[in-house]
Structures are given as structure tokens and as C-alpha cells.
């Protein structure tokens, strides 16, 4: 039984973390400075592309929500690694394929699908699929599929800038590696927080409402992006 002090410490830690989150966190967007860079860059620029990739992942709140959902009941490092690899695989495939073969998908629809992935994971964590279908859908496959969509979304965003052909492949690979770096950074923080919380009775107590809220956030993301789609 953790002491009251521990509980209090954890609570303030969470609040601080929330307050400290970047105000300009953006979901899959590209901010002004990055935009300028992308439009003017020439040739191979490994470190800048690495950085944009990492920043995209570490500050995209929709992606972070999905990660919270995936990691909520996962704690063995083997499982975590497996999931991350599945996502990476899907993501890399469509990002490279999308940019190289000039495929553009509507960004609002992609972001709505990412919202859907958050709903799916929240519902799954609540035991919804087990209750309704008798079993949970293959989680690894689901992560792979959402990874594929995510990659298409990014490919579309990057193509808006008409990236110069020169050094394109190397830049894309650097971007993709940055995405992994950012993902690992975000993962480390989320795992740390969730694993800490898991040891406390409040975890079980609030597991249901947390996943309910996660679903709700997913619905908000979807509503927000779909409205954007119909308005554009």
C-alpha cells in the first residue's frame, strides 16, 4: 500500500507534466519554421530531417494518445518492442512508398482514422471486443494497419512542399529514423508514468475511466477532423 505522500507526489508529477506539455503541440501539422525549411532545403540534410521526424512524433498528441492506449496494459519490454516494430514497419512502408510514387491522401481523413485508432484502443482496453465478439482482434495486426495509415498521412504532408528530388531518399530515411527516435522518447516517458502508476491501487481503480476518457478523446479527434474534411 503506497503512502499518501507517494500518491501525492505522483499526482503533482502528472499535473506538472501536463502543464509542461508544449502549448503548440500539433497533430500531424508542420509548423511555420519547419515549413520554411522544407520549402527551401536542397540536397541531403540528414540531421534536420531527423529532427523534424522526431519532433513530429514527440509532439503529435493524437499519436501520443494512441501510444497511451497501446501501452496501458503492456509492460514487458519484449511486447513493447514488438509493438513499436510493427508500427515502424507500417509507417516506413507507406511513407517511402507514398512520397516516391506521388500518392496523396486527404490529411483530414488520415487524421480521422488516427482518431478512430484511439477509439479502437480505448474500447479494446475496456474489454469491449472480448465482450461483444468473444475475442480481441489481433492487436499486432491493428498496430501495423494504423502504422500504414499514419505513414500515408505523413507522405501527403511532406509532398505539399514539393521536396527537391536531390537527396530525397536519404532525407526520407533520415526523417523516418527521426520518427523512431521521437517515438522512443515519447515511449520512455509514457512507460515510466504508466509503470509507476501501475504499482498503485488507483491504477485499477481508474483504469476504466481512463480508457473511457481515451475513447472520448478519440471521438473528439474524429469529429474535429471529419468536420475539417467536410468544410474543406
Amino acid at each position, binding site marked *: 500500500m503506497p503512502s499518501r505522500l507517494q500518491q501525492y507526489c505522483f499526482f503533482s508529477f502528472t499535473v506538472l507534466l501536463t502543464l509542461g506539455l508544449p502549448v503548440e503541440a500539433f497533430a500531424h501539422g508542420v509548423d511555420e519554421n519547419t515549413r520554411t525549411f522544407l520549402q527551401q532545403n536542397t540536397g541531403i540534410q540528414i540531421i534536420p530531417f531527423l529532427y523534424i521526424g522526431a519532433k513530429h512524433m514527440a509532439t503529435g498528441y493524437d499519436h501520443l494518445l494512441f501510444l497511451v492506449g497501446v501501452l496501458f*496494459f503492456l509492460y514487458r519490454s519484449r511486447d513493447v518492442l514488438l509493438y513499436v516494430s510493427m508500427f515502424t514497419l507500417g509507417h516506413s512502408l507507406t511513407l517511402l512508398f507514398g512520397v516516391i510514387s506521388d500518392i496523396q491522401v486527404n490529411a483530414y481523413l488520415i487524421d480521422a482514422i488516427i482518431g478512430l485508432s484511439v477509439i479502437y484502443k480505448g474500447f479494446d482496453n475496456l474489454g*469491449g471486443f472480448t*465482450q461483444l465478439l468473444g475475442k*480481441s482482434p489481433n492487436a499486432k495486426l491493428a498496430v501495423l494497419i494504423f502504422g500504414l495509415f499514419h505513414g500515408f498521412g505523413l507522405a501527403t504532408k511532406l509532398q505539399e512542399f514539393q521536396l527537391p528530388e536531390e537527396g530525397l531518399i536519404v532525407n526520407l530515411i533520415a526523417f523516418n529514423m527521426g520518427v523512431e527516435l521521437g517515438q522512443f522518447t515519447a515511449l520512455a516517458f509514457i512507460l515510466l508514468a504508466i509503470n509507476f502508476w501501475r504499482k498503485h491501487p488507483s491504477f485499477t481503480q481508474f483504469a476504466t475511466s481512463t480508457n473511457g476518457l481515451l475513447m472520448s478523446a478519440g*471521438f473528439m479527434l474524429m*469529429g474535429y477532423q471529419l468536420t475539417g474534411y467536410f*468544410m474543406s
Partner: protein
Amino acid sequence: MKQQTIALTKAGLFKYTLASMLFAVITLLTIILPAEYNIDPTGIGQTLGLTIFHNVKAEKTTSLVSDKVSENASDKVKWAVKKIEIMVPALSGVEYKFTMQQHKKLSYQWSTNGLALYFDLHGEPEGETTGYFESYAIATVKGMEGSFTTPFSGVHGWYWKNTSNAPVIVQLTVKGEFEKHGLE
């Protein structure tokens, strides 16, 4: 793989799903949609002041250019002092032009952070399509101060070329009468 999950009854599951949807819809209608798209079916967004983002016409400036302005007239053509920061990317060139009437004077001062840049200060007459331009000054220097008087109406300004492997920032200050200015 064994995964711990929450086991809710069907009724409980239904309750949680419905509640999460309801909460999402309320938040969307009262907060997110008014703020993001100016869609405010309940009027609550207006009451909360969230539609304010759409009341002001946001003036979008490119991030390449940050300027501090002191203007003393509100006409289309105005005398103004402007400080402009222009980023010339590595191994490329940038044009920054001012739209000016004939016989107007522009005083300028520009400098880089130490690196010499090739520049061509020139003007293109209004409606010119053949690519004709008149150069006022060409050199490779770290900075320059001076003024020019426009021989014709059109766009007048600088072409800077950066042959180094790192971006160079040009700090430009201008004084004079011009309509528009920006990168080309």
C-alpha cells in the same frame, strides 16, 4: 500473449461507450468546433469567447520575414521604416523586392553576420514580361548602406546569393515609400 484488460458487463460497456461519445460531442459542439472552425450551434463558444480567433482577420506573414514596423500613413503607398530579416538558404539565392512608384527614394542598410554575399540590386519595370531589369549595384560584400531613386514604377530590390554550406541571415533596414514588399 497474456494481456490484462478490464472486464465490463455488456451494460457497463454500453454505458461507458455512450458516456465517452456524449462527452466528446458536447466538447466538440461547445469548444472545439467554435474555436477551430467558427461553427457554433449552441452559442456557448461565442459566450466563452472562443470564436474570437475568427473575428480578427489574421495577417499572415511568412516566417522568413519578421519585421518591426513604424508607419505614419495609412494610404496604400506609405512612407515607412522597416527592419526585415531574410534567410538566404545554403547554396541558393533569394530575391526580396519592394513595389514602388516612379521617382521614389529608398534608403537602405543591410548586413550579414560576417559572411560576404554576392548581390544584385535591381529594378524591373511594371508589366515587364521579357525579363528585362536594370541593375543599380552588383558586388560581393558583407553589407552595404545607401539609397536609390526608382527610374520607373515596378519592383525594386535585391538578389542575394549564398555559396556557403550554411544559411545566412541578412538584416535589412529600409526607409522610403513602397506599397508591397516580400520574397519572390
